[in-house]
């Protein structure tokens, strides 16, 4: 193993590729948080009164809450007064009217990230809403979507142009007081994406958002709201990156999905926030609340995530299966290397009759990382005929990492069937040896084996992103075997 | 003995049987053939009393009784036997327990005394000989780890022990090699007598070489499209099921 491990060490030294800082003026609030800051954010965005009230209520509730400690993660206490809660890139004039008006440096940033924003966007047929720090910068393909009746815009635009939809759906899945980080987000969120797909419409293209935290000492608190009306369907992808900085940055987003009768929402995430360096310095704290509600009958919500970044991940994309025959899915690959800590999983709450859910979780730990799957499957007495299947596998690479599996199964209906399977093992030495013997390099062999391990999840991703996810995976794990 | 009139049934919101008519008299052997998915197993399961199937119309009488009004276990005790196409495995429940429980349930229902362990063992040994099964099968879980062919033999063994008036055997010949087919056929033939009847659901003429049917029916699209004597089976073997649907249209 030793020659192999040296090779691998060398590979491991591979650095985070997206760590560069964009040098543009930004318009930020000074660090600190009180009601004045909340009001200032709201005012900067010209928000209607109901939204200000909503924020203030959330803020007051947040002040009564305690930061959760149950997750299997360890970090120094966060000083919430040392964070700036608003940081918008200052554009030359007011808001850009079109892509051409967007700060070219910003576009260059996206290009470096390999984001299909401009030319590539068109080629790939992807509509992108890019959130840079806290403000949505530009949205492409508005026209084509508009013709189909699909609303896809920044959250701020939605507040301005569709306040009745916002008022109706905001907080209807994740109430402002749901948890500590959701409450914080509800008070200070600055922007995000909004999607509304009207009844009967299949969204004609993949929708996509790229999130990036740029400014130092800023938190990012974006908010995403997606509504698929009766018989509508949409596939949405978010990507995340952040520059290398040696302090920790906070990302506390909230994503709400609503699927009405016969509607389908597919939400995919490729998360590559800066994970910190090989000694565990810096990196993003990713404390995110994602929840979808299958409100209508025969509706379906599917979460797919590939999580390779962040110093700490705390994230449980969940489904509330209210509508009869509704379906929830969760497919996840979570990779933790070096000193990363990931505590992620899902909740499937079965309320309606004949609701079904599938959970597939693949955790990979390397270096000194801790990777935890935490999942709740709850079947309420009303959910006759409910079914769940959970498969959760962990792969360990190296003697110093850890992998945990914490499922909760709570069943109150005797006609339900809930099944859970889990395994934890080391990457197969014999598989590795087989590949080496056939002349494949250790790196390639590991990649092959790991991507085989993750295949069931990758195949759930939209085509363009499956490749990206695969690449990310190999970058994150380079050198991790030894 | 069995009279099916305009029987319709649906499962999971889908209409499968759409007016089946069939009459089986004592002493007769009938064969039901038909393409995959035509509803043969559905018919068999509906007759056995499976609850997932919703009866949407029609009547079935068995020995003058309203079969559809009876529960599954009552039908079994009244002498109706279903040989399953896919016999379920029941780990932990002993094969011989099940058989004994079934036989005694039937005897109790008929007001007969239960068999004691000694009689039962003698009976089962005799039947297992016919089926050429080793005694090891007795102590295993019901169908647990049995091969496809062993499961089918076990079905016929149960039939021989229970001595039903009417046996519906759903593809009991599928997956059997030629020797097993002979054994299974011999088993079925021992049950042939003027007071009993057998309905064979099958795809293959070869079973009918060993168990000669009095009548052959073609079930397609949830209806009996054609009925005839044993020669119909041979014609089907030659010309395929399409021929039936076409000739029906013509």
């Amino acid at each position, binding site marked *: 193993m030793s020659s192999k491990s040296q090779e691998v060490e060398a590979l491991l030294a591979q650095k985070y590729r997206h760590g560069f800082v964009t040098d543009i003026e930004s318009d930020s609030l000074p660090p600190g948080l009180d009601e004045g800051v909340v009001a200032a954010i709201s005012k900067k965005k010209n928000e209607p009164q109901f939204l200000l009230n909503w924020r203030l209520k959330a803020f007051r509730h947040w002040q009564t809450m305690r930061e959760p400690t149950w997750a299997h993660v360890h970090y120094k206490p966060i000083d919430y007064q040392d964070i700036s809660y608003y940081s918008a890139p200052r554009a030359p004039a007011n808001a850009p009217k079109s892509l051409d008006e967007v700060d070219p440096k910003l576009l260059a940033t996206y290009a470096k990230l390999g984001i299909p924003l401009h030319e590539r966007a068109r080629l790939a047929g992807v509509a992108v809403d890019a959130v840079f720090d806290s403000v949505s910068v530009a949205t492409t393909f508005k026209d084509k979507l508009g013709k189909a009746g699909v609303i896809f815009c920044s959250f701020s635009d939605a507040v301005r142009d569709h306040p009745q939809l916002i008022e109706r759906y905001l907080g209807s899945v994740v109430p402002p007081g749901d948890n500590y980080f959701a409450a914080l987000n509800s008070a200070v969120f600055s922007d995000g994406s909004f999607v509304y797909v009207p009844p009967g419409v299949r969204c004609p293209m993949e929708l996509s958002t790229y999130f990036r935290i740029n400014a130092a000492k800023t938190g990012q608190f974006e908010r995403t709201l997606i509504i698929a009306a009766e018989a509508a369907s949409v596939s949405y992808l978010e990507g995340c990156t952040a520059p290398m900085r040696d302090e920790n940055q906070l990302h506390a987003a909230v994503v709400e999905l609503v699927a009405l009768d016969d509607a389908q929402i597919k939400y995919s995430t490729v998360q590559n926030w800066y994970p910190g360096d090989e000694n565990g310095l810096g990196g993003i704290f990713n404390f995110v609340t994602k929840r979808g509600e299958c409100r209508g009958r025969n509706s379906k919500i599917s979460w797919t995530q590939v999580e390779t970044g962040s110093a700490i991940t705390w994230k449980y994309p969940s489904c509330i299966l209210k509508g009869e025959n509704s379906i929830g899915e969760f497919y996840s690959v979570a990779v933790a290397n070096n000193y990363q800590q990931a505590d992620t999983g899902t909740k499937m709450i079965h309320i309606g009759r004949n609701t079904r859910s599938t959970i597939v979780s693949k955790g990979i730990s390397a270096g000194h990382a801790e990777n935890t799957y935490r999942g709740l499957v709850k079947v309420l007495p009303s959910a006759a005929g409910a079914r769940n299947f959970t498969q959760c596998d962990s792969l360990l690479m190296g*003697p110093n990492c850890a992998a945990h599996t914490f499922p909760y199964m709570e069943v*109150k209906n005797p006609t339900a069937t*809930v*099944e859970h399977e*889990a395994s934890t093992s080391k990457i197969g030495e014999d598989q590795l040896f087989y590949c080496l013997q056939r002349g494949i390099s250790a790196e390639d062999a590991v990649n092959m084996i790991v991507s085989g391990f993750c295949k069931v999840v990758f195949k759930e991703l939209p085509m363009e992103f499956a490749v990206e996810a695969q690449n990310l995976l190999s970058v994150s794990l380079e050198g991790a075997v030894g | 003995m069995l009279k099916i009139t305009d029987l319709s049934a649906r499962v999971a919101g889908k209409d499968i049987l759409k007016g089946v008519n069939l009459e089986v008299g004592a002493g007769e052997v009938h064969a039901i053939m038909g393409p995959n998915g035509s509803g043969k197993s559905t018919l068999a399961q509906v007759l056995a009393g499976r609850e997932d199937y919703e009866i949407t119309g029609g009547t079935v009488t068995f020995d003058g009784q309203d079969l559809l009004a009876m529960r599954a276990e009552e039908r079994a005790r009244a002498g109706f036997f279903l040989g399953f196409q896919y016999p379920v495995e029941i780990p932990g429940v002993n094969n011989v327990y099940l058989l004994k429980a079934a036989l005694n349930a039937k005897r109790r229902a008929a007001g007969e005394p239960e068999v004691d362990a000694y009689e039962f063992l003698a009976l089962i040994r005799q039947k297992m000989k016919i089926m050429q099964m080793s005694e090891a099968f007795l102590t295993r879980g*019901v169908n647990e780890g049995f091969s496809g062919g062993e499961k089918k033999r076990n079905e016929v063994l149960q039939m021989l022990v229970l001595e039903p008036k009417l046996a519906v055997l759903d593809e009991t010949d599928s997956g059997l090699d030629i020797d097993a087919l002979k054994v299974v056929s011999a088993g079925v033939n021992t049950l042939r007598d003027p007071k009993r009847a057998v309905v064979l659901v099958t795809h293959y003429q070869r079973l009918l070489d060993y168990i000669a049917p009095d009548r052959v029916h073609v079930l397609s699209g949830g209806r009996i499209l054609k009925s005839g004597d044993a020669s119909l089976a041979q014609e089907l073997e030659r010309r395929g099921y399409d021929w039936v649907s076409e000739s029906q249209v013509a």
Partner: protein
Amino acid sequence: MNTALSPAAPAQSPALRAFAAQWQSRPADALWPVREKALQRFLKLGLPTTHDETWRYTNLRSLAAQSFVDAPRKSRSDIDPEQPLSLLGRTEPSVSLLVVNGHPVMPAAGSLPDGIEICSLRELAGLDPDTLRRFLEPLSDADQQRWALLNTALFLDGLYLKITGTVSVPLLILHVAAGDGADDISYPRIVIDAAPGSSATIFEHHVAQGEHTPLNNSNTHIALGRGARLEHYRVYSTGAGATHLDSLVVRQDQDSHCKQFTIALGGGLVRASLEVRLDKPGASLDSYSLLVGHGDRHVDCVNIVTHGAPNTRSTQTARAIAGDVSRVIFNSKVIVDAGAVNAQSQQSCRGLLMSPTAEIDTRPQLEIHADEVKCAHGATIGRLDPDMLFYMLSRGLDRDTAQSLLVYAFLADVLTGMSVASARASIENALIAQLPDSQTLQKFR
């Protein structure tokens, strides 16, 4: 009289005040420093709440209001001899030891088989406090050990069993709970110290007599020496009004093997915890749990198995059934410490829900800190398989019989692990008596 309790310990609820008062009446023997520490920790931590991870599904709030007093000490003559108490029947050669409300009734000299020596804990505290102290420490703040902490502080007596060789007959410890009032509490404590190379089979059977069943805060500590083998059963058969908080701790030396059965047949609220440390190479554990809920019973079983050394192996097999308005919880955790290479663990947990008002909760957890491991778990919760049921009905079986047979089959994986035939038979009998068609089933065994 013990007066050493520091007044700093806060005791807000009647229960905590009562425990503090009980402490005042404990003898100030050589062990009081460690026992006092245990009490202080307990009082500081308080009763566990549903915010504590292993108590998520069991709410003990109602206990806080009770002013507990020690259950009375009783002698053999106070126990109703008519009530059939033995788990092992009359045919199996066995040795019984009686423990009433935690107080052992010592057997006549010479009545014990070879390979075993016993002594009461009270005696041991006087003769050899260092040995006893080894079984009281280390104290743990972990929430699954909360009641063990209280037992350590407040137990009045108990049994120390030293297994020195091969004990050829099963040993039955019959715990009788027989209180005088509604606020009685008892602290039974058993220590099983198995010498290297020894082997034994030990039953702990918990039953109740009379109108009042004390709150039973029992604790058993098992230490297996190198190569020792133990088959241990704890069977709860108390009445529907009984509350039983039982903790079992097992520490295993090299190449030792423990087969452990936890069988909940009775009791109103049963909380059974099992904590095993496989601290030396080659140690192995096979744990079986059979948890039956009916009426409005609440059964909460917590297993925590730690692989602390290389080449350790554990299996956990749990079968839970919940009917009526009962709730059954099976919470199991396997921890593999860093360095415990080649650890292997298997957890299989299956739950059967028999009524629309019952609930089963299960959490099969893995916490793995080493990479050369093979750990897996499977858990299911559901009803009897409808295909199996239909198959049996179509053969003419009664619905009740068919269901009972399937339930029986469901439990088979646990029952077949039992090596003592008479115990298996009487446990099966007790189980079958709770199934819908017990008569037919009896005939089929």
